[in-house]
């Protein structure tokens, strides 16, 4: 057990417990707060996986922008546990069993994924592959077309949000 395995275990437990909190809690505000904890744990996973820039972007975009938007909308609509619609118990039980069965099947299929990576895992690159210098160089050479297309996508999403959201 070295330090990265211990960190991985802590982050995994944090991510899974708070993800369960998102789908279980009755109050939507608690769901949002649990989701922010999940995003921080996932960002820790990214740092352990040599993707430091992606970890920072994840915190800024998700925990900083999207979740604040969610919180504002929830507080604007004054949602709380009393008005939260609930599904029947039997449907929840059926969803749980079906999800668990598919989960077990996929985990069994992933069981021997390690054997395929044995050859490459011994020659891992240095930890600086995910830093912004390398990423920026590749982003403006190899990925410049998707980058520009995503800017057009943002423009259309912004116009669409304004058009849908404005009063009649």
């Amino acid at each position, binding site marked *: 057990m*070295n330090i*990265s*395995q211990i960190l991985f275990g802590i982050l995994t437990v944090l991510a*899974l417990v708070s*993800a*369960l909190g*998102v*789908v279980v809690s009755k109050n*939507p505000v608690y769901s949002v707060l649990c*989701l922010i904890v999940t995003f921080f744990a*996932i960002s820790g*996973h990214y740092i*352990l*996986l*040599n*993707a430091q820039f*992606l970890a920072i*972007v*994840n915190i800024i*975009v*998700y925990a900083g*922008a*999207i979740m604040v*938007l*969610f919180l504002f*909308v929830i507080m*604007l*609509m004054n*949602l709380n546990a009393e*008005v939260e*619609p609930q*599904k029947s118990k039997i449907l929840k039980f059926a*969803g*749980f069993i079906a*999800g668990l069965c*598919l*989960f077990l099947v*996929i985990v069994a299929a*992933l*069981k021997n*994924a*390690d054997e395929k*990576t044995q050859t*490459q*895992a011994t020659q*891992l*690159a240095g930890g600086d*592959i*995910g830093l912004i210098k390398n*990423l920026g160089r590749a982003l403006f050479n190899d990925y410049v077309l*998707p980058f520009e297309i*995503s800017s057009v*996508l*943002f423009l259309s*999403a*912004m116009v*669409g*949000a304004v058009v*849908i*959201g404005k009063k009649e």
Partner: protein
Amino acid sequence: MSTVPLTHILFVSTALFFTGMYGLFTRRNMITMLMSIELILNSVNINFVAFNKYLFPQKMDGIFFSIFIVTIAAAEAAVAIAIIINLYRTHKSIDVDDATELKW
């Protein structure tokens, strides 16, 4: 130095995926369903980054895919919240069972 095996990371992302799936199927609140979708997208991101590190450590394709997924998730959340606000104005509720005009 022994690293974390790939199987454990894939287990985390699969568990997150099915947690999000369960939330998507059992909750009727539109905002919580949208949050479940964000959970699912993040589990996919973990998969991309993990395979990028373990299979192609010299390349950055997985990281770029994850960055573009985060970008699209932000745009999707903005449009979805605009739709939810509009629905709340007309129906005074964000229960998906109340929005049945397009059902038949």
